[in-house]
């Protein structure tokens, strides 16, 4: 498969966890900051470059996404929590800041609920997975693949460079289809985590919610659902930004950095 071009300063390491090969990108020095990406990494990680000035930024690729191996037996979010316990052991990571975006936000929240003592500060960026009563919802699976890129951003130019020139590029389609399959294993039957709200009170570490005000995939109203369960969390929203708020707004990247510093 075609590897995504990541910024030069990021070091690419391969780790084998329970027989599963995955890639860990890292750059910078300082307190460790783990970033859990969303249901695709094809739009790169350029947004993370400023963080490397102050932090040791660690971006592991989730099994079933990008160049990481597939494991059809990983069929629930908790399997990913267990995967990361092993990976963080392998990396010698004890305590760190955790930033999760979209699917990665749901994953980060699940990890932090169970292993909160390892998290200094938590940032959830447009996290997926909570269902409110009569609240706006987003169901990723309802989107035809060709419409997904447009739904991710407010300004299409931000991701244009990562898309193939031919919208029917078979390799790109195939890779996205594979990632859709990974996501379906986790979320097809239940796109919402109905148990997580019972445990969100365990997130006692300082927590920041970040949302793009023009998020077409998971509307900014979803932030209110999270805040019902996380009354102490700070919320920052950004005008003119869609779901990929970090890719679109440098101010959002800076806000995360300020919160973690």
């Amino acid at each position, binding site marked *: 498969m075609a590897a995504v071009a990541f910024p030069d300063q990021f070091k690419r390491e391969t780790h084998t966890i329970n027989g599963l090969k995955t890639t860990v990108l890292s750059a910078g020095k300082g307190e460790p900051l783990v970033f859990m990406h969303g249901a695709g990494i094809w739009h790169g990680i350029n947004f993370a470059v400023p963080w490397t000035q102050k932090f040791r930024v660690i971006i592991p690729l989730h099994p079933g996404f990008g160049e990481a191996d597939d494991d059809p037996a990983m069929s629930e979010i908790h399997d990913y929590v267990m995967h990361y316990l092993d990976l963080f052991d392998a990396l010698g990571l004890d305590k760190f800041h955790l930033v999760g975006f979209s699917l990665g936000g749901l994953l980060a929240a699940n990890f932090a609920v169970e292993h909160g003592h390892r998290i200094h500060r938590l940032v959830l960026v447009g996290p997926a997975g909570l269902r409110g009563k009569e609240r706006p919802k987003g169901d990723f699976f309802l989107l035809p693949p060709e419409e997904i890129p447009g739904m991710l951003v407010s300004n299409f130019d931000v991701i244009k460079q990562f898309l193939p020139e031919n919208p029917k590029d078979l390799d790109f389609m195939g890779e996205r289809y594979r990632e*859709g399959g990974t996501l379906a294993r986790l979320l*097809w039957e239940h796109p919402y985590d109905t148990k997580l709200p019972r445990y969100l009170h365990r997130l006692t570490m300082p927590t920041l919610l970040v949302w793009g005000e023009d998020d077409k995939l998971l509307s900014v109203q979803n932030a209110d659902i999270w805040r019902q369960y996380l009354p102490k969390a700070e919320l920052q929203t950004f005008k003119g930004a869609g779901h990929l708020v970090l890719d679109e707004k440098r101010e959002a990247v800076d806000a995360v950095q300020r919160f973690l510093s």
Partner: protein
Amino acid sequence: MSDGVRFDFMHFMPYPHLPENHKDYHSMWVDFPNKFYDPKKGAELYKRYLAELILAEKVGFDAVVVNEHHNTAYSMMAAPNLIAAAIIPQMKKAKICVWGTPPNLEYPNRLAEEYAMLDVMSEGRLEVAFPLGTGMEYWANPINPASARARYRESIDIILQAWTQDGPTTYYGDFYTYRYLNPWPRPYQKPHPPCYIVGTGSPETVELAARLGFGYSAVFVSKQRAFELNQQLRRSSAEYGHPVRPEQLPLQVITYVAETKEKAEEEAIPHLRFFFEDALRTTPTFLAPPGYLSVAELKKRAALADKLHGGFSFDNVNESFFVAVGTADQVVAQLEEWGGRMGTSHYNLLAAIGDMPHWKVVKNLSLIGQDVIPRVRAGAAAERRVAAE
């Protein structure tokens, strides 16, 4: 059927009363609004379609075939076992083929029970097929497409255990737990009704049919691909130690017979157009929900879909698929040629094509019964005599 020749009549039971602007809808499946279904028209259609199935036996067909689809005007058989139950008491000797309910869409014990009921009710005339189900079914039913193949294999395993082992037995699987697998009734036929896999040619399902010793029928694949799959199944089944018997390879042919070739084409083409252009219209996303296909298969099909783009043409359809439209002579010759190449004399005819009116279906079935079936049988008998001499 003792001559080895077998003719099935397959019905899709479409709902053809579509609104004028139906082409504005991207799909006739999954999300095509069900407000367009008028139950009064539906009642008339059921009466008509059941009568057509029953007529098939009277004119000389050996079996009738029904199948299952959801959320679509393509088919009014969301529950084909109900259709089977309705026709069993009205038919005397024809086999009733439910090809079939995707096992993923029912509890396996319940499907084993329903099929056993039909087999008992028909005194052993049931045949079943186990389809994975089209991608569209996974948008309409609450089953994960990403684990569909694994669940499917487990479901078939449970059904076969239920039919072949004295109960109660237990089953502790990845998807289902049975503490008392002990379905009543049990099938009339021993060890169980003849089974087939129907599919669109995924290597995994051909392999499965070979392993289980089931028949296999490819649907909506090109002629070329059907020949390849036929060879693949023969090789694979022989390796598993149960060589394929000719009756296990139903050859699906869209068939229409009339007095002249021109008349046959004139009468059939509008309905072929409806079938391919409208009834089968769906989206790539509905065809391939996430995880339903391997990435390699997805890419192969996406490349092919691009090539087929450009809408219906009779020449294209004729060239790509098994389509026999013409005089009885021509249809007999065509069936014998394809049957010869596929090593089968089991023909599954789609003889009620798309939105065809009742009179054409009756005419078609009658002409097939009168002029096609007897001659294919006679041809097979003559061939056997030659071989014996």
